[in-house]
């Protein structure tokens, strides 16, 4: 902390005191995060994609999955002013598709992670607190979900259930599947962290000094296990986006909603002549995944109390 304030040295000690007191754990974490160039770049990328996702309905010149360019006689055109990312052979405006796909993929990536984190915390916490039978059963359940190859399972489930869901809910289904099958890592982390933190002396000390059960859990245990959960969740968003792209690319996703994977799939047959159809959604995927990974890395450094100076 000393290093930060070197440039504007406080004139009196009193001033320094108030400054220090205001430095909550989050402020300290943010200050550390800011110093991490890669993390900051990642954050910029993530915010950029979030902005695109929110504004895509207004930014995109064409509605989702619209083959209008075909009727305008613009199918299969290379990037131009009218079609910044070109058009596909079937008349999709790639620029519009990438923008709409941003919304779809962020929705899946963030939503699936939220579901996985909630399930993972509940199961991991229950496994960490309880002893004996229940703990073993929950641990085994997590291991089963961790061991089974997820992609084929999700592909199969998506194929089966997509027939059943109403049109427009296909992406939500993919999101649910990714979340419901992808919580095991979070559960392991939460369980392990609770086992670690629960035995630490400051937990016993606060118990010995009269802290209530809820205070111990919510003030001393949860915040101390949150760091790895936040970091893993950020990395999980990247993973979920990538998996969604794969599912859509393989044709198992929602074919009525714009996603990056679907656009790549459309273009892959013509990649030799119309490279732009694959390249732009591919780049979007690359940068989104990179962005979230960089943020995750930055967070893991910034939130580690042992690394605070």
């Amino acid at each position, binding site marked *: 902390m000393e290093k930060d304030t070197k440039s504007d040295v406080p004139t009196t*000690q009193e001033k*320094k*005191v108030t400054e*220090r*007191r205001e*430095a909550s*754990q989050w402020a300290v974490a943010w200050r550390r995060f800011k110093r991490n160039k890669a993390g900051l770049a990642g954050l910029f990328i993530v915010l950029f994609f979030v902005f695109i996702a929110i504004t895509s309905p207004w930014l995109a010149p064409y509605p989702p999955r619209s083959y209008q360019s075909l009727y305008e006689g613009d199918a299969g055109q290379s990037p131009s002013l009218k079609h910044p990312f070109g058009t596909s052979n079937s008349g999709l405006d790639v620029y519009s598709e990438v923008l709409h796909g941003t919304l779809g993929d962020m929705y899946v990536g963030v939503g699936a992670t939220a579901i996985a984190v909630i399930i993972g915390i509940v199961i991991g916490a229950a496994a960490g607190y309880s*002893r004996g039978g229940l703990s073993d059963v929950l641990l085994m359940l997590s291991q089963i979900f961790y061991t089974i190859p997820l992609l084929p399972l999700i592909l199969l489930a998506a194929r089966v259930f997509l027939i059943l869901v109403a049109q427009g809910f296909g992406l939500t289904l993919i999101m649910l599947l990714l979340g419901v099958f992808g919580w095991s890592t979070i559960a392991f982390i939460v369980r392990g962290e609770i086992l670690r933190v629960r*035995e*630490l*002396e*400051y937990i*016993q*000390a*606060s*118990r*010995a*000094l*009269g*802290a*209530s059960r809820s*205070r111990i859990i919510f*003030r*001393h245990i949860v*915040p*101390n296990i949150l760091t790895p959960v936040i970091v893993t969740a950020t990395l999980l968003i990247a993973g979920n986006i990538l998996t969604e792209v794969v599912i859509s690319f393989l044709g198992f996703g929602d074919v009525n909603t714009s996603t990056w994977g679907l656009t790549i799939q459309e273009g892959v047959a013509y990649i030799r002549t119309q490279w732009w159809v694959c390249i732009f959604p591919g780049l979007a995927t690359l940068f989104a995944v990179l962005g979230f990974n960089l943020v995750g890395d930055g967070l893991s450094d910034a939130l580690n*109390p*042992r690394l*605070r100076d």
Partner: protein
Amino acid sequence: METLLEIKGLKTYFFTEAGVVKAVDGVDFQVGKDEAVGLVGESGSGKTVTGLSVFRIVPQPGKIIAGTITYEGEDLLAKSDEEMRKIRGRKISMTFQDPTTSLDPLYTVGDQLAEVIREHQKNISKKEAMEKAEKLLEMVRISEPHLRVGEYPHELSGGMKQRIAIARALASGPSLLFADEPTTNLDVTVQAQVLELIKELRETQKMSLVMITHDMGIVAEMTQRVEVLYAGMMAEVAETHSLFKNPQHPYTEALLQAVPRIDQRKTLRVIPGNIPNLINPPSGCRFHPRCPYAKDICSEKVPPLELTDNGHLTACHFWRSLSLTGT
């Protein structure tokens, strides 16, 4: 002397998958008002578990299965969880072994002190609690308390952390403090300072002290009376001075011999073997496999606790015939 805390026949067992660990197996213990008592033994002798039992915070799968714990005439084991919670920290308090982990790394020193203060005084504002926290830091001799309240534990040295842990334990003015190995993990010079501080605070705060330690030097320095535990059972109870001079239990003698002396040129005597497995403790006297004076009866009969001529309580079949060396 007025009795503050009285433990009778305490049994605290741990029900592990490997079997029942009899960590504390029938221990009596008393602390008088303004008294400093040492609770001594090797790791695993049951001294910390005895302490935790008083607070009723024995970690899972441990359980108090027998005995009574009376504090100021009230039966602590009969209290509801909520009543017990109000006693912890306010009336009886504890500091823990490892100062590096006994403070929560996420909160500033001030926050952690204020938390304890406000836990027991609901109507105090955060600002008042912070001011009180600074006073507490002053009390434990921490320089520039107004700066320290804003610092995180990782910014402090081990000795400072232990002082803060002590300040936190004293935040609500308890009348009895359990100090569990307060000087492990500290430099020798810092150890002396921390002990001096505890000694002083005991007088200024008018509180009783239970010193949980394996260090006979600390016992001599800090306490008036000592209880020696071995493998979850009482070995000897005596006035500190008398215990050092005339130990009446072979384990006490062995502990005293194991203290290095700078004024005597002789090889340090160690106690052979380890503390026994408490799932299947040795039959008879639990110390007999390591005892140099053991005879057949020791493995057959549990020695009763007897009052010796010089006022010790000892659990040895041969206290009458043995002449043990003290220091």
